[in-house]
């Protein structure tokens, strides 16, 4: 193996929780019993759940050891395409943990909730400024719920005009959540193929847009890493037939302060605070998926909305055209605090700079790696670039083998086998927080792996070699599911 700074690891074994501990141990400081026991109806009670009894030290060691088998952004570069794995600033974590926030009950009188409502109201304004859109709801709990909200808004818009439309156009480069969200809202997803440049052509949309089509769900920049250059004409075509344009803003990190989404003809846009606005993914959530709209869709936004009366902020349900509620309360407030702090840290100038550097990093990688990987669309990209394993096929190794070997060099793999339009896709999104040296190291690692493929392809097929476990049998896991212990 080429010697590069890597992570061979300090890997300790750790059993399952219930294989540890002893009955009668306790890891919890139980509050003092200062009241007597009251009678309980015996018919209703049980023995309680069968949990392992652990001490505080047992719990700490268990999870500390587990954490050591996990790769995060703080461990190393995490170039997962369309996921925007940028650095998560530590300040934001500290701030969101202030007890005023963590202990805030959601149903108190407004005057006791001003601090939270101020942050939410300001964050709505900030997101509206950054995107160019007119109004914002912070309620959706994640990107996919933002998509659902967007679909419901479009459905409500058409119904308010007395019409019901049954279809929605979804390009082949869309995230899987797009057609699933559309289906949840009762729309039939109509696929449209991207063109030879990896973007949508106006003609392809014009050919299928009709008066039973509610609109289009377009990811911009798209999952091939390209800006949809024809977005203005596409929006025109959709609008002329009475449709609405939904934009999946998961890739907003490429265009902050550069593109005005409203001017692009977008009617609804969702953002991922856990991508563009630096809040952590936490191993798969919680995130937040705010939705930004143009004025004409504002009356349909979820309730409650924040309003101001005589200098006091309050939550109001008084929006008769609303699509309703999506979340038990107001969305993932704790995540909002982190995004709020991020925007205050960056300001308009550095948000734009972040987008510029994210795009620079991606183009730099594209130029460096196209020497070794097949690049199906060889043109300037936005925040990410998509290669394939075509050149490596002659050595009988595939995308999976290549990226599994990359793990041995201390990097998290890129997104693979997505978007579906590129066979054996390797989708790399470096983000702006990676330095030139780290990117050069990633490039060197890929080059080393590709050389290894020529000499010793088994090294790749059996990779990774330095992790807690080797490649896992996913087929058996699905055929004979073992989902609890």
């Amino acid at each position, binding site marked *: 193996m080429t010697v590069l700074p890597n992570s061979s690891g300090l890997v300790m074994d750790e059993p399952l929780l219930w294989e540890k*501990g002893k009955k009668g141990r*306790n*890891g919890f400081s139980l509050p003092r019993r200062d*009241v007597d026991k009251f009678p*309980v109806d015996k018919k*209703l009670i049980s023995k309680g*759940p*069968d949990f*392992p*009894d*652990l001490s505080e030290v047992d*719990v*700490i060691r268990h*999870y500390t050891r587990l954490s050591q088998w996990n*790769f*995060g952004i703080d461990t190393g570069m*995490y170039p997962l395409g369309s*996921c925007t794995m940028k650095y998560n600033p530590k300040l934001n974590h500290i*701030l969101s943990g202030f007890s*005023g*926030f963590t202990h805030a009950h959601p149903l108190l009188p407004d005057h006791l909730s001003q601090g939270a409502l101020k942050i939410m109201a300001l964050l709505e304004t900030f997101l509206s400024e*950054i995107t160019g859109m007119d109004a914002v709801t912070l309620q959706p*709990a994640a990107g*996919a719920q933002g998509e659902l909200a967007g*679909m*419901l808004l479009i459905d409500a818009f058409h119904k308010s005009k007395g019409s019901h439309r049954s279809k929605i156009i979804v390009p082949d480069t869309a995230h*899987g959540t797009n057609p699933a969200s*559309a289906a949840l809202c009762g729309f039939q997803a109509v696929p449209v193929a991207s063109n030879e440049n990896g973007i949508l052509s106006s003609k392809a949309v014009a050919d299928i847009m009709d008066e039973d089509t509610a609109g289009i769900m377009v990811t911009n920049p798209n999952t091939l890493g390209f*800006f949809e*250059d024809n977005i*203005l004409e596409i929006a025109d075509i959709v609008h002329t037939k009475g449709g609405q344009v939904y934009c999946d803003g998961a890739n907003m990190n490429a265009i902050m*302060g*550069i593109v005005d989404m409203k001017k692009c003809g977008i009617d609804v846009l969702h953002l991922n605070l856990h991508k563009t606005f630096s809040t952590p993914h*936490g*191993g798969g959530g*919680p*995130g937040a998926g705010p939705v930004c709209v143009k004025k004409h869709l504002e009356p349909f936004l*979820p309730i409650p909305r924040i309003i101001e009366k005589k200098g006091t902020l309050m939550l109001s349900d008084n929006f008769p055209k609303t699509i*309703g509620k*999506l*979340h*038990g309360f*107001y969305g993932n407030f704790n995540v909002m605090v982190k995004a709020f*702090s991020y925007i205050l840290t960056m300001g*308009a100038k550095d*948000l734009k*700079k972040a987008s*510029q*550097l994210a795009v620079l990093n991606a183009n730099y990688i594209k130029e460096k790696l196209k020497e070794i990987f097949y690049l199906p669309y060889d043109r*300037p990209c936005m925040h990410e670039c998509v290669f394939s394993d075509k050149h490596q096929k002659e050595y009988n190794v595939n995308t999976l083998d290549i990226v599994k070997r990359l*793990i041995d060099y201390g990097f998290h793999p890129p997104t693979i086998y997505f978007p579906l339009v590129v066979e054996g896709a390797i989708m790399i999104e470096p983000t702006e927080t990676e330095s*030139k040296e780290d990117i050069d190291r990633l490039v060197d690692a890929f080059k080393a792996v590709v050389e290894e493929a020529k000499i010793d392809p088994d090294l790749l097929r059996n990779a990774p070699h330095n*992790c*807690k476990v*080797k490649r*896992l049998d996913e087929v*058996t*896991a699905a055929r004979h599911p073992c*989902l*609890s212990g």
Partner: protein
Amino acid sequence: MRFLPHTKEDIASMLDVAGAKNLETLFSKIPKNCRMTKKPRLPDPLTEWEIYDYIVNLSKELPAAHEYKMFIGAGSYHHNIPSTIPFLLSRSEFYTAYTPYQPEISQGALQAVYEYQTLTAKLLGMDIANASLYDGASALAEALLMAIRIKKKTTVAVSAAIHPNYRRVIQTYFQPSGYTIIELPYLKNGCTDISAIDKIDDLAAIAIQSPNFFGCIEDLSYIKKQSQKIESLLIASFAEPISFGLYKNPGIQGADIVCGEGQSLGIPQSFGGPGLGMFATKMDYVRRMPGRLVGKTVDMDGREGFVLTLATREQHIRREKATSNICTNSSLNALAAAMYMASLGSTGMRELSRLNYDKTEYLKQSLVNVGFKLPFDSPTFNEFVVKPPKGFHKTYNRLLKKKFIAGLPLKRFYPELAGHYMMCATETVSRDDIDALVQEVRS
């Protein structure tokens, strides 16, 4: 800018490789009419220390936690959280990881979620649990949609004693589908009246919350028997999982799907979110279930390990035919809940649950002693409805000034219960706090 590592020289040499003259030219293909022409109006960037001061002050505008005695629950509960939990959750390896798509370098998160699924299944008395959904409200909406898929019927019955916000979320999820939601009223004892269910055609599921919104314990076993007669599923919702340390869990009582809010299990209230959508069911229904699942398997060398599994139900494979559109869920909060359950253990869970019960009963008794009426006579957990003596709204406001949150006025959610309040006491409320409240009420 401390998160942007590029020096001027880096930028120059990288632009050179990228074949761009300057940073602006990287965007030259974007049509002019799409460009942002004015700079977004955002505050000038602040330093770390300025932001700290600014936000600490905003957090102090949420004084309730430190200064107030809280007797309010209604789906968001104040429980003690061991210091170990925020400490462990802030481990970067958990905190800054994405969804564990690459199992070899995600074994920590995967094992932790597998353990969460197991502890959740045990707590709720079910075969299996998923890796989490967003919150209790959307979990219930997903459960109802799942029941409709299983039963191939188009109507669901939902108890009026389910959290009003959850019911509002269900309506939103159901609005475009054309499925019918029938509301089941509550009885004089505060529990759900299911007497009408056999008159409802095509009923896929009956959804009941227990403890319900009023804190009342529902007779799920009885409801299960009735639901079986009409071949509909029983969905048990919950907002207060601590209750299952004392009361029978929904699984023992025959629930087919159990879903609810896990915030009580070590997750801060945070103005209502993020919470934790807990979701469990029977093994027979696993392929109809929404959300991610972690399963146990072996690696090439036969060593035990964990992977995301049964992904063919999910949106990234199944697209529009998926069982749900959910992708990002509440993984880190699922870890918090697992850590919480592991810290308590069986013994701790029983004791804590009983303590919550006894504090609430003490509060109940004390309020009855000063003339409060209990409109519902069902057994309760953690919270209960009271009808205070006339003119209590004035007392409520006076108490507010004295920094007591004396429950939740119910009129906003149930107009017919105007003048009623919902009171809550968890283990965080001391006997002195309760006595002080009652003293104030009396004076």
